[in-house]
């Protein structure tokens, strides 16, 4: 029991040291500046099609389900309201984060793990390069910047497909959906969504980079680290989602 607690604390401490190294790496923009743009392309621009597809289906299903859960007598503009709130506040950021954990996080872990087991990271250290500043910081910055960008697209596409689905496939009119869409809207709801996306981006980059950076035991270790990174990051995203809601949900009312 004591050994288990000590092991858990040790793992938290190791990640603390890793965070400290990232902080140190941020002081060297020349090292990570160029690489950051490349990572923004990999993490953000290349993930855009997947994000759009996921958001489109989320929006369509949300509108459809919402319409057919309403009991008789409820005005149909509620479909717009619930679709907007569901997509912007919850589904847009959360599902984008989870999907990118699989696409981006796993890739980061596999890349860094492979570099670790093939001793490329050791070679960087030998050449007096700070591997954290060169490999981790650009990914972290790119994820923190690009996740909110992707979530903006996800929200817009999700609401758009919700509108189309509601109007085309159900008896909700465009005017009713638009009315519900604008009902009780507060700009902080968008900010809340972007705060979540930023936190999720940081979690994806941090946990997946750490798992890749600390990979051992060859190719098998790379696979194990990748799987572990996806699991840890997914749980971390869900925990962060709950914490964000606990802290900020009271400010969401229009």
């Amino acid at each position, binding site marked *: 029991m004591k050994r288990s607690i000590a092991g858990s604390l040790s793992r938290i401490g190791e990640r603390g040291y890793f965070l400290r190294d990232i902080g140190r790496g941020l002081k060297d923009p020349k090292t990570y500046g*160029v690489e950051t*743009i490349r990572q923004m392309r990999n993490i*953000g*621009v290349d993930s855009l099609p997947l994000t759009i597809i996921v958001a489109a289906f989320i929006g369509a299903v949300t509108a459809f389900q919402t319409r057919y859960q309403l009991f008789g007598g409820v005005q149909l503009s509620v479909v717009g309201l619930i679709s907007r709130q569901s997509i912007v506040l919850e589904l847009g950021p959360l599902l984008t984060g989870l999907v990118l954990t699989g696409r981006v996080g796993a890739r980061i872990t596999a890349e860094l793990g492979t570099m670790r087991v093939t001793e490329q990271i050791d070679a960087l250290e030998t050449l007096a390069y700070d591997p954290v500043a060169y490999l981790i910081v650009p990914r972290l910055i790119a994820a923190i910047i690009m996740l909110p960008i992707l979530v*903006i697209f996800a929200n817009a596409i999700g609401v758009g497909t919700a509108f189309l689905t509601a109007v085309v496939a159900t008896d909700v009119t465009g005017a009713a959906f638009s009315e519900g869409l604008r*009902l*009780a809207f507060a700009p902080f709801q*968008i900010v809340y969504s972007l705060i979540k996306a930023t936190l999720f981006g940081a979690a994806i980059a941090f946990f997946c980079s750490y798992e890749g950076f600390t990979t051992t035991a060859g190719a098998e270790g790379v696979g194990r680290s990748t799987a572990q990174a996806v699991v840890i990051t997914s749980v971390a995203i869900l925990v962060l989602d709950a914490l964000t809601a606990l802290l900020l949900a009271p400010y969401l009312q229009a």
Partner: protein
Amino acid sequence: MKKRDDVLVGLVMAVAIGVAIIGSLWLARGGLSKGYPLYAKFPWNSGLKQGQPVLLAGVNVGYVDEVELRQDGTVLTTFRVGDEYKVPQGTVATVVPNGIFGDMAIALTPRAPNRNSIPPNDTVPVGPSAPGIAQITGKADSIATSVNAITSAFEGQLVDDGGARDLRRALATSNALMINMNRLVSQFAAIAAEQNRQLTATQASFRQATSGIDSAKIDSTLRNMRETSANLATLSADFRQTSARLDSLIVKINQGTGTVGMALNDPGAYNDLRAVLHRMDSLLADVKRDPRRYINLKVF
């Protein structure tokens, strides 16, 4: 490659930021245009918030821009109306519920069509607010409380204070009363049956008595009565004729025509008659005093 990454990333970020800004503005205001401001002073607890819709005759024409709490018991509300909409003079602003989730909206209700419109930055007069979901719920709650109190009082009266026992006793008494009344009705029915029997017997006796009367005598009597009646009618006609003649005679006398009329109506004749009577009086007195002067009766 590096240059292409920069462009792509920049493009994606610019589009995303544009989508976020335009989307937020569209959701909050319905577009990029701000519209023109109007003001209204609503009482406290109106439930207005920034971004709520403004309806002109039921059509969404703007949104609530700012809500300022004032110490005089009012909330100064700034709302913006789209440039393409004009609010007619005489319009009244009220706060109305919007949907079933307790959201509110400003309803602008024109009293009548008017070509003159309220200019920007003017204050719209406020009308009475419609009750919201919370007020209706509160009313329902107070009604439920009252019903509960009435039920409790009823229960107290009926159960605790022995009302139910009294009611049972009253019902038992009523039952006994009904039995007695039933008995009384039975007695009445027996009496009525006896009376009916006696009445039937009386009718039979009467029929028997009337069958014994001679109808020929009755006919003769009736005929005599009819003749008597005819004679009486003739007599009455004679009386009427005589009366008419007497009437005409009296009229003649009153008018002073004819001998009798002149005698009765002429004062000279009256005076002459008095004088004659006077003289006859003195003559009679004289005769009494000295009869021999006038009567010389000699027997031998």
